[in-house]
């Protein structure tokens, strides 16, 4: 059974690249473009994805908003999350880790690097 990864990213080109790269590594990829849609999707499913790539700047709820919601429900405690940030500011990184993210990448990024980080996280 393949590993399911949820990509929450509103930039179509980035989600295309990530989807292609991760599917090469036999991941099953689901893409959602809106923070609020992501929350509804996760709340409506019994089975969470095995990992999540989460953009910070999203329509609806932003990445930090989603992380705060995850904090209130222990169901999300074991969900590995890699943040995708376009800013790379120290404050953003610190806040991301404080809210429970496991790793982060800064745009522009290398899709191969994201794949390697995801592999390590899931090990």
């Amino acid at each position, binding site marked *: 059974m393949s590993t399911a990864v949820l990509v929450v990213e509103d*930039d179509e*080109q980035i989600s*295309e*690249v990530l989807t*292609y790269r991760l599917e090469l590594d036999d991941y099953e990829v689901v893409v959602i473009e809106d923070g609020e849609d992501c929350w509804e999707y996760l709340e409506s499913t019994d089975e969470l994805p095995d990992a999540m790539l989460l953009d910070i700047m999203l329509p609806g709820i932003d990445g930090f908003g989603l992380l705060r919601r995850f904090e209130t429900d222990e169901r999300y405690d074991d969900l590995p999350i890699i943040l995708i940030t376009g800013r790379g500011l120290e404050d953003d990184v610190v806040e991301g880790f404080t809210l429970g993210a496991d790793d982060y990448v800064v745009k522009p990024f*290398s*899709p*191969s*690097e994201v794949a390697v980080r995801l592999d390590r996280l899931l090990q």
Partner: protein
Amino acid sequence: MTTWLGDVGIAIVGGCLLVASITFLVAVIRYSIDGRRETIRHELVPDLFAQLERSTPDWERWYETHSRLERYVIRQMIAQYLRKLRGSEREQLLELATAAGIDDRAVRSLESWRTTTRLRGLIWLTLLEQPVSVDRLRAASVGHSTTRAAAARLLLVCGGPNATEEATSLLLWRNDERLSVFALDTLYRLNQTDASALTSKLTAEGEQWDEALLLQCLLVLGHCRLERRPALFEWLGALLEHDSPAVRAATLSTFERQGWQPSVRQYVDVERILSDPDPGVRLTCYALLGRWGDSTSIEWLQYAVVTDPNDRCRVTAARTLDRIGASLPTIDADAGESEAPAHFAAAIAWANAELNPPRRGAAGWS
């Protein structure tokens, strides 16, 4: 006469119909082409990614196998993905760009008489991170603000000897033009860790600049890491006496971001600034005092709470005191009968009310 007017009317209506028809036709054709390009793009994406995964793709051959429209779409995709990707994928895209002749075309574009063509060339060169000599850049860009900004960004991206100075000089080529947002961002990125280039231009030429440009540069300067050079701070200190209150306020903001050290503070005459006739200047001064936060600054802020003639300024001073954990001034109960204690009491009570608005509880206002 009536016939003549009728003929003119018919000609006008006919002309409008012709223009409308042509516009509609062009719109339909463009819509069709855009739709076709989008379809091609979706077909090409997997193919392009498959090539990117190869260790040694034959880009020239791959590019040549595509139609003219497909190659146009490929070039668009290269531009889009170069902005978003790093690492080995980006390196592959650069090779594809070379195979597609994009780099050569971009360099040739710099010779064009058309500003838009030169701008497009500069954008491509920046995406490709391909350096060009300063002389050639200057020749291609000085005529227009957008090309100057694009050339400065190329210098920022490619670096090189004196790149910061040359790029800053290009951005500040005209002393009577505001910078665009892009140019302002470029100016900041060039100078953020070492603002020598910007400070040199400012101190040498700033007095001749338009006020709008000067304000923009002061804003950027305030966010840069500045060396503690007496010449710069003396020059900034002189701006505190500028005729324009906006410049005085912007200068205070620049000082504010440089910290509380005595080497900075000696250039700011707080007492004189607190009597500045412009409330905007005094507001900025209160922010500065809040940043410094020492006992003297707190005393000045407390003084401002009771004496500033402007409501907003008094509130700002009070909020600043609250934010830094200092108390509002208190009234001496033993003070004699005079208007002064009553005035102070009213101001402090008013400031306290502003800091502690009534909160609505579940049962109504508390």
